[in-house]
């Protein structure tokens, strides 16, 4: 079947809503249905039924179904996973609970660390030991392992994680232990650290392996039921799951490594932005997703969202680094901060305005909802400033009460600081925008990127209200609010390639002793493994193979990823590798280190299908001025007074319509604020594009 005939379906199960997107040769349809937490497949199937009916299509017409879910994340956060037992190296029963031996908050003596997914009573050990070079220092005691099996059964084990010391360097003991336990306990799924996360650092590797085991039965059950439900509907197309790394994977791989499905929803948002970037032909993009409780920021360069190897789930102190459970999986790297429409505002001990991370949630919500909330939230500030039209909030489903917002701002901030409610609102608006700009700046700094050269793509309910100000703070000169932003993640899923990434630790120094043949063999082996995972679901589509080395100066602890050349490595490649490393090092850290040796600690291989280039957005016809629908009073904090602002209805806009800033563009779900430093126009595909005015340079 030619791509033109494809009927593609995507579903994103979120905490509250399940978003469904259907793409047909005739266009795109979207649906939002309530998530059914007891059996999420029901909500998915209901939504699919509705959307197919909308399109006049049947299940049998669907060629591809792409599915993302927060089920794995939620199972961990709510501690609803399987009763998991951990089998470790004798003498290392407490790796999971000793963790990093640190406190995530320096000055708070009352902190509580997150409870490990496997309590001490369910942590067992057996005699065995590999050393750092993968040499057996103590053989695996197979009898002890056999004797352990009935104890695991008696402990009620529903899932088993095996994580031995240095198993990344030599997986033999783990594999053998897995065989023995599988024989004795054939009904209990087993996760090996050398398969789930073959990387050095025992705590992170064990934590990741345990999380995989913990969510495996639940995910296997869900995926099995979904498969059945799809079969019952005679679905014959291809089924893919979205991973946290932003790739697609087969049902089988998802069952094996369910931990890789954590955080697929936000990944979808980043892919959505990456696709927009490609359609806009923008090489450097900053994706900015601001919703009700958090803002997520991600850098996208050359169409690729930034990626990372570590992620923390279930932070007990919200958003505080170190307060969650570490997972070492390929993830799209984004910063998430507690800055959303519902983020609550207060004054701290220094009488500073603090926004978030606490959120008003939907009940009672911000004060202006009139549902009993008395503490001001970001939305209250937006209403007080005049950015949000009270009677048209959330598609007209709710009328906001600005007077309650003003009272809340006055009580929480204005009185103490001697500010009017409007000025207090301005302070909140400025601080929340600064927080987001600051997060973006740190993120860019960590990636060595110059942020002012990026184009911002803003989506999520609260982003269009704040994006222009954040862009001003970052020196970003172009900003795009795409259409269809409300179901961005699900739309993004449809653009993701099928892919699988493997990282293995194998430290090698970049000197004469570098055994290129061994590394070439290692990379080929990894490529084969990844290729198998991908071909499972990718048919014969052409595959892209990206190989990287995690390089550092010998003695350092953080690595920089450098792309490796295609084909076998030879000694001739070494000078170029060092040069590439030093160029990147200097870009990130200002100066290189003379005399220091360079080593490669980890090796990565990512095999993926090559997604079709998305079609560029339609060209924008000649620009022409549009007539504002009305005006509104907006409080201008810089001038300390209200000003009249033109308001345009997005529904009335046509490609080419020009909206000079300052102005508001109102639509059903949200409002876009075009600040005085920007002019906006509607492009050929209905996106709002803002460009910084020449005079504002």
């Amino acid at each position, binding site marked *: 079947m030619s791509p033109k005939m494809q009927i593609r379906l995507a579903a994103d199960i979120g905490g509250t809503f399940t978003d469904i997107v259907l793409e047909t040769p005739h266009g795109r349809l979207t649906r939002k249905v309530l998530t059914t937490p007891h059996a999420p497949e029901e909500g998915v199937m209901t939504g699919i039924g509705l959307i197919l009916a909308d399109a006049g299509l049947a299940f049998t017409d669907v060629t591809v179904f792409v599915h993302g879910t927060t089920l794995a994340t939620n199972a961990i956060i709510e501690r609803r996973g399987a009763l998991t037992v951990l089998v470790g190296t004798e003498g290392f029963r407490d790796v999971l609970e000793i963790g990093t031996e640190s406190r995530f908050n320096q000055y708070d003596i009352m902190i509580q660390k997150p409870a490990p997914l496997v309590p001490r*009573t369910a942590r067992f050990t057996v005699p065995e030991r590999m050393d*750092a070079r993968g040499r057996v220092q103590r053989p695996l005691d197979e009898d002890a392992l056999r004797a352990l099996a009935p104890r695991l059964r008696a402990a009620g084990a529903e899932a088993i994680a095996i994580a031995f010391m240095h198993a990344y360097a030599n997986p033999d003991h783990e594999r053998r232990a897995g065989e023995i336990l599988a024989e004795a306990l054939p009904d209990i799924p087993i996760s090996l650290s050398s398969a789930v996360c073959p990387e050095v*650092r025992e705590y992170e590797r064990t934590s990741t392996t345990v999380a995989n085991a913990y969510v495996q039965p639940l995910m296997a059950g869900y995926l099995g039921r979904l498969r059945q439900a799809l079969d019952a509907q005679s679905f014959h197309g291809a089924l893919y799951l979205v991973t946290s790394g932003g790739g697609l994977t087969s049902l089988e791989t998802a069952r094996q490594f369910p931990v890789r499905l954590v955080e697929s929803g936000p990944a979808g948002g980043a892919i959505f932005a990456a696709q927009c970037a490609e359609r806009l032909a923008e090489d450097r993009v900053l994706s900015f997703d601001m919703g009700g409780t958090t803002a997520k920021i991600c850098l996208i360069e050359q169409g690729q969202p930034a990626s990372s190897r570590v992620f923390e789930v279930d932070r007990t102190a919200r958003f505080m680094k170190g307060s969650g459970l570490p997972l070492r999986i390929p993830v799209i790297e984004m910063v998430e901060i507690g800055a959303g429409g519902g983020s609550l505002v207060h004054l701290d*001990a220094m009488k500073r305005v603090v926004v978030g991370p606490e959120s008003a949630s939907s009940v009672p919500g911000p004060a202006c909802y009139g549902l009993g909330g008395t503490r001001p939230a970001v939305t209250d500030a937006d209403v007080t400033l005049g950015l949000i039209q009270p009677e048209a909030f959330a598609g007209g489903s709710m009328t906001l009460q600005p007077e309650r917002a003003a009272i809340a701002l006055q009580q929480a901030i204005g009185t103490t600081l001697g500010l009017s409610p409007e000025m207090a609102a301005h302070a909140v608006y400025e*601080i929340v925008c600064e927080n987001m700009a600051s997060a973006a700046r740190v993120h860019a700094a960590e990636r060595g990127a110059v942020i002012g050269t990026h184009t911002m793509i803003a989506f999520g309910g609260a982003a269009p209200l704040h994006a222009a100000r954040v862009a001003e703070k970052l020196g970003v000169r172009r900003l795009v609010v795409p259409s269809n932003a409300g179901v961005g993640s699900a739309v993004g899923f449809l653009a993701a390639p099928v892919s699988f990434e493997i990282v293995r630790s194998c430290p090698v120094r970049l000197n004469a002793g570098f055994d290129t043949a061994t590394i070439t063999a290692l990379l080929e082996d990894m490529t084969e493994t990844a290729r198998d995972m991908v071909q499972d679901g990718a048919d014969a589509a052409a595959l892209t193979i990206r190989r990287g080395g995690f390089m550092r*100066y010998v003695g350092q602890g953080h690595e920089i990823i450098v792309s490796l050349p295609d084909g076998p490595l030879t000694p001739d490649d070494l000078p170029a590798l060092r040069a590439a490393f030093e160029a990147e090092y200097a870009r990130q850290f200002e100066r290189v280190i003379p005399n220091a040796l360079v080593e490669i600690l980890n090796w990565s291989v990512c095999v993926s299908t090559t997604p079709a280039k998305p079609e560029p957005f339609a060209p924008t016809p000649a620009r022409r001025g549009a007539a504002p629908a009305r005006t509104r009073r907006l409080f201008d904090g810089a001038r300390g007074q209200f000003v009249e602002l033109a308001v345009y209805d997005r529904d009335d806009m046509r490609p080419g319509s020009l909206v000079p800033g300052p102005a508001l563009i109102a639509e059903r779900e949200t409002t876009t604020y075009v600040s005085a430093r920007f002019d906006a126009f509607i492009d050929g595909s209905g996106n709002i594009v803002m460009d910084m005015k020449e005079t504002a340079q």
Partner: protein
Amino acid sequence: MNARSQIDLQIMWNRLIAVVGEQAQVLIRTAFSPIVRECEDISAGIFDLRGRMIAQAVTGTPGHVNSMAESVGHFLRHFPIETMKDGDAYITNDPWMGTGHLNDFVVTTPAFHRGKLVGLFSCTSHLMDIGGLGCGPEGTDVLMEGLSIPMLKLIDQGRVNETLMAMIRTNTRLPIDTEGDTYSLAACNDVGVRALRAMMDEFAIDTLEPLADFIIERSYNAVVEKIAALPRGTWSYDMTIDGYDTPLTLRARLTIDADGVLVDYDGSDPVVPRGINVPLAYTKAYTVFGLACAIAPDVPNNAGSLAAYRVTAPAGSVLNAPHPAPVSSRHIVGQMLPDMVFGCLRTPLPDRIPAEGTSCLWNITVRGNWAPAGQDTIQAFALAITTNGGTGARPGLDGLSATAFPSGVHGTPIEIAEIQCPLIFWRKEFREGSGGDGETRGGLGQIMEIGSTEQRPFELLAAFDRIKYPPRGAAGGKDGAPGCIRLAGGKELAGKGLQIIPPDETLIIMTPGGGGLGAPEARTEAHRQADRKGGYA
């Protein structure tokens, strides 16, 4: 102050904290010293032209933070502002002007904006080896403890001081790492300068002074307000710890009055002949940290928040050791000082004060020779593996097991340690029953069994405390288990000093448990059961 500028100042304050956060991240990411990159033993901050710290990265260790705050004043005395040039960087490891021992390099960089000096960035990190006897309490004066770097120019208008670099390389067992770490300190300040300039451009300001005044005043007022809500009075506390070879007694008197809080260590024992003495800056650092935890944990560290606290110790005492006293392992005693503060405050503030904990880091500092993977030559290794005991039981909460307090460092991953040396850990897990009993229980220590994969001895530079004098329980709570260090063959080892671990022997180290809080009878049955089931007690 008008509304606009008030809001701008708040935003710039947030921005400065982000700027120093970025500075710290660069230091951690580029460091060679394993204790920096894996354990984050650093600090980074920005200072105004009067040497006042206005923002400090929320990371690193209290001992560095507050002593670094004072060190910039010393830099300013040696390098007057009018002599500073764009592209300069200054360095010292003077224990009395820096952060308390020679292993800490402090680098200060003037920040120029549009040709004008606007502020100073300073940072410090712990380097693995600076020569001498190595990092341990063995020395009998500071000259034995390694290379001293007086206040010197590290970089002169962009040109690295190669003479100094050669001196540094020549005087350490780890020349490449030490040089690399020196560069990394300078680089992180450069990144800070770059970010500061961007901020000053954005807000169109050409001086930091109004911002510095705002930050310092707001922070000072916040701390003073909190102190005003405390009961007034004077309380005292004594604590005896193992010391080097004879017990060491510390005494504190803490006074809360209208002026703030004063901690006076009068009556503490005099300087000892080995390197566990503490320079005053470091004494202040940890004392103020304890005060901040108890009184104003939510006020960021800067010259303003520190100003309401005063710390004194008699010259010549172990807590105000003069040059040339040996100070290499000053953390052992220094890290006990928050417990001294807590001991004083337990009477007036019983609801927020924990029992005594392990407090000092149990860094396993080792040296020796080995043949690393892929190399046929025998090479030296020197490594400090950070481990911890239990913290004291807290009001309403058990102590934290195997967790650093007051230090803010992370433990060393064993797999990372084993890549860098021939040591092999046969065991590293909770030490059952080591937490002091009480209504809330002390955190557990750890038990470690360490051998070598090579047929060679290795050296242990022991610097452990709370072996003879365990962390004490409070309000009826029991003491935590004392630390222990011995060989598997039975031989007891000294808690401090250089000792050789023979091949084929196994070193056993047990870190202390934290003290309990409140009467054991008051512990709930549910907690008791959980302790029994998990084997915690």
